[in-house]
């Protein structure tokens, strides 16, 4: 069965790119455009992996992670955060909130995304 990925990102073009790439790779990808929507979809669909943008309207990435930590059902879902700037301060905080890996929006390339996703699945199984 294809692994389920929920993509939570407010920037349309990044969303489209990621979705396209991951779908091509054979993953089952759903999308959400803000933190609120993302959490709802998470509770519904129980994904195998979350790709989470940090800066979003309504609810941002850090808030989402905080809520996930408090929710038993969501605590253990692996998270790859999508950081805008790659500032160490941001990455640090994300890691402390449970992110297992990160992508820097302004620097990554499609291949790197695929590799990180694969890596995540090989760790968590």
């Amino acid at each position, binding site marked *: 069965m294809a692994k389920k990925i929920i993509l939570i990102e407010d920037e349309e073009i990044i969303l489209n790119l990621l979705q396209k*790439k991951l779908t091509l790779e054979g993953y089952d990808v759903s999308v959400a455009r803000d933190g609120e929507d993302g959490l709802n979809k998470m509770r519904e669909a129980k994904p195998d992996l979350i790709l989470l943008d940090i800066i979003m309207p309504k609810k941002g990435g850090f808030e989402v992670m905080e809520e996930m930590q408090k929710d038993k059902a969501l605590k253990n879902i692996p998270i790859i955060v999508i950081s805008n700037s790659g500032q160490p301060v941001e990455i640090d905080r994300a890691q402390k909130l449970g992110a297992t890996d990160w992508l820097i*929006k302004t620097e990554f390339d499609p291949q790197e995304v695929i590799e990180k996703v694969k890596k995540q699945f090989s760790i968590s199984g």
Partner: protein
Amino acid sequence: MATEKEEEKISTLLEDLTSLESYARDLFSFLPLPVCLVSSVGIILEVNPAFENITGYNIEEIIGKPIEDILIKKEFEELSKETLEKGFVRAKELNILTKEKKEIPTSVSTILRKSEEGEVIGYFVGLFDLSDIKKTEKDLKNAQIALLNMLEDVEEARGRAEEEKNKTVATINNFTDGLLVFDPDNKLSLINPQAEKIFDIKQRDVIKRSIQELKTFPTLEPLALILLREAKDILRKEIQLKENLVIEVSSVPILRGEERLGNLIILHDITREKLIEKMKTEFVSISAHQLRTPLSAIKWTIKMFLDGDLGEITSEQRDFLGKTYRSNEKMINLINSLLDVTRIEEGRYLYKPVPTEIEPICQFVIKSYEEEVKRKNITVSFKKTEKRLPKIIMDVEKIKLAIQNLLDNAIRYTPSGGNVTIALRHGKKEVEFSIKDSGVGVPKEQQMRIFTRFFRGANVMRMDTEGSGLGLYIVKNIIEAHGGRVWFESEEGKGTTFYFTLPTKEEFAGFLKGF
């Protein structure tokens, strides 16, 4: 018939008379004052030698002459009248006429001579030569006039000086910059209202005090510390006095020829300039950030095209897309460099310095350029040290970036077939990194600007129009933020060697303390 006694008496009297006559005559002759005896109608009867002298007339010439010859008629008449009326004239100033027709100012006195019966016989006229006195008077008068003129001139000069001084004082008092003047003993001799305002002090509390004493005033302490510390004659430093007050302090010696009259301290408010600089940096930072994501999205999209993820593309399409991709990459690099620059300017640059070995970092960077180097047919060699180098406290990402910028430059500006050598050396308290290329070099007249923002040498601009001019600026900032030094040697057409040093762990700790 006279008796003997009577004859004796007469003889004695005659003797007395003779001697009296003789006495009078001697006296008359001796008298240095000109005197003459004049008849009641003004005929000169007798004169003394002094009179002869002053008038120039001989005694024979003058006796029998009217005194009008010597005195002017009108004046004589007045003189005569007054003498006859009052019996004397005392010190009347009249001019007499000499034989040579020269006029001499004199003081004339007369005294009437009456007979026993009261008949006017004539009068004595005594003269006192006033020429000298008159001359002295005239000289004094001239001197007085001269002095008054001088006084006037001095007054005028003083007035002008006062005016100048007033102008200067007004200028100083209204000057928009704060001004302080210290005399050669480093005591405060002047402080203007603006300076009072800046430091929130009053002139009377600080005037005449030494810099040491001024240090005890809390608002003055930062300034006093700078003045005490800096031995240089001319200095310019910025100090932040309050939350929203940044002052540029300039010190200039006041010289008169070779003599040093003191020190002038100018306090210029640059709060606004600093604010504008900050706003500019923020603007660049925000703009650059905003640009990053769209650029990234473009990069991705094109990559997906090139990877065939969006369907097959023709080779012509591939060609154009490839060029667009590279163009976009340049933009991304520029934006990243700009962001680095803004971060440097905002001071938020070194993140988490940790003790690290520099060798692996060099290896990593060299490896990342493998393809590029092969493509350009450049030989890159790495000279390691025999012994293990001590660890250096560094922000790994930043040092990686610095080495990357240097290697990038070396490769970029070395023509095909050239070589680049990276070497590490263990100095006394530091580690030295050098990178030598056989590239185009830096023209001598442009060498001092090499580390400035946006600067690109004329020779490399012609060769390769891509560089941002920020690479070396960033390298310099990174290295110096670590307490190191960076420099280079270059010869146009031969090559360039860049060096930098980084302090070892112990040294870095000392460097940090300096903050």
